């Protein structure tokens, strides 16, 4: 169980995190989604006592993190896999933590086995590790104390597709056993593939949160191409249907396939393509919510938007940014 209440972090004039509140329930995976620099890591660090909030508070397992007597036995934390001593061997890195946690040394080998780092790799110094190996070592470290809660910052970073799939399985299994998982990512499809709940953060504020279907509902649900997109777009606008443009030029409409078909027929536009979007418009929503309009970025005086309702989205006609996948 994780509860963040109005977490705010300011560095001088700059507000990195503003009024962030959310909860993570046992048995679920929460995806903390946002572009780079949105405040994800800062928020996670505040949850673990690594950064001190300017205001607001958080509890982990019902108490502030720093009041858990031996936190590694309850909470597995991986903030940055590259943050390991370069000159220490992989196994020794875990063995030091194991000694600190008071778990038997055999647990180290179990975890190395679990994350598929063999004896040869475990003997190497961390300096020789690839990012993927460091990520595995970090996950082994997080699981060392047999925790019931995991806080992972960009855990899929540096993992190959096989590794990502393995990680998804591991986290699903963890949650299925009643564990709580909070993981951050800047990649929508990564979060979408695993999270039960999604919390979207942009410019330090939570702009939306809910289950996947709650968030996606109605947003850019239909993808359409026609011989005359300009006319179709006007027709959709006239029917109060929000339209945006995908990066391949197709229109994305916030309405059902049937409605869009009817509007096109009434407007006399011949369709070339019509169908529901693969993710129910989640991607479109993500870009609309996290896109920084010029001059709007980090406006610290604006009132905090109250989740979970996404802020009203005006008809967006911008081109999608290239999706990094």
């Amino acid at each position, binding site marked *: 169980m994780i509860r963040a209440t109005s977490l705010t972090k300011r560095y001088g004039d700059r507000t990195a995190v503003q009024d962030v509140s959310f909860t993570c329930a046992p048995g679920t995976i929460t995806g903390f989604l946002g572009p780079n620099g949105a405040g994800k890591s800062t928020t996670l660090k505040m949850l*673990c006592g690594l950064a001190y909030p300017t205001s607001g508070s958080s509890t982990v397992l019902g108490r502030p993190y720093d009041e858990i007597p*031996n936190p590694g036995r309850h909470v597995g934390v991986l903030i940055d896999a590259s943050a390991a001593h370069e000159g220490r061997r992989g196994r020794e890195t875990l063995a*030091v933590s194991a000694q600190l946690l008071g778990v038997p040394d055999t647990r180290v080998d179990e975890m190395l086995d679990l994350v598929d780092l063999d004896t040869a790799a475990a003997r190497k110094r961390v300096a020789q590790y690839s990012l993927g190996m460091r990520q595995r070592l970090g996950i082994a470290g997080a699981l060392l104390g047999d925790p019931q809660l995991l806080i992972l910052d960009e855990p899929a970073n540096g993992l190959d597709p096989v590794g990502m799939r393995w990680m998804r399985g591991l986290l699903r299994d963890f949650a299925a056993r009643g564990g709580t998982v909070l993981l951050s990512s800047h990649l929508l499809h990564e979060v979408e593939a695993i999270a039960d709940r999604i919390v979207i953060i942009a410019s330090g504020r939570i702009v939306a949160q809910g289950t996947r279907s709650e968030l996606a509902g109605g947003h850019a649900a239909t993808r359409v191409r026609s011989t005359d997109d300009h006319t179709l777009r006007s027709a959709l606008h006239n029917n109060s249907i929000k339209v945006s443009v995908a990066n391949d030029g197709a229109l994305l409409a916030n309405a059902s396939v049937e409605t869009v078909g009817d509007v096109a027929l009434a407007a006399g536009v011949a369709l070339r393509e019509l169908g529901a979007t693969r993710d129910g418009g989640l991607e479109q929503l993500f870009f609309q919510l996290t896109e920084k309009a010029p001059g709007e970025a980090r406006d610290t005086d604006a009132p905090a938007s109250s989740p979970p309702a996404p802020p009203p989205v005006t008809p967006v006609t911008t081109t999608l940014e290239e999706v990094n996948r």
Partner: protein
Amino acid sequence: MSALATPVYEIRAEARRPGFGRLTRIELRKMLDTRSGLWFSLAVAAVTLITVIITALVKGGHDATLARMFNNSVEPAAILLPVLGVLLVCGEWSERTTLTTFTLVPDRGRILQAKLAAAILLAIAALAVCLVCSVVFGELLPAPGGAGSVSIVVFAQGLVFLTATMVIGVAFGAAIMFSAPAIVIYLLLPTAWDALSSTIHPLKTLSHWLAVGPTLGPLATHSFSATDWAHAGTTIALWMMLPLAIGVWRFSHCDVN
């Protein structure tokens, strides 16, 4: 890849927080289990050994007394070991292992205490090595008049000397947080102060009280008078307590990046 082999996730009885002894042992382990830490410690031991041998050979004829050999053997450790003390703290920040250390032990004050304890234990171990080297080589290459002995008082003062410089190293590390500037400032600042206060007339009186070299150096040489102790005490207060106070605050309050 195997499935997660640990099925139990119900809330357990609170695992107790690690004791101070365990934290200290871990800090000692961390000091020596990295490539740089291990080689640095071995280098200090090697330099100590070489110093003792050279002292024994060069001064062999007339005054290779045990006391002199002991005094000489402590010097390299006194200069080099505190660098290990600096790295003990700065290494955590520069290698970003604070991310792990602080999440496993959120009470940062206890970590710093454990680091100080580990540093002091290392200083004691180093002193033991110095004494053993001195005695062994004093026996092998005895002066005509006999090797003599090291008085308990001088040995104890040597202990104060080494532990004080070691703690000063940790304090500088905690206060400055970055390895390179911390080491440079640790090594240069007291020396610069010594040089400055011995050349600039109005500062000369002060140098008796605050100069590290002149007030602490002789600790391993002869037993101290009350005045000597007063001088050494004020020096320690300035060079240890001030950076330590700053260091404790910064270590406990800085965000981890």
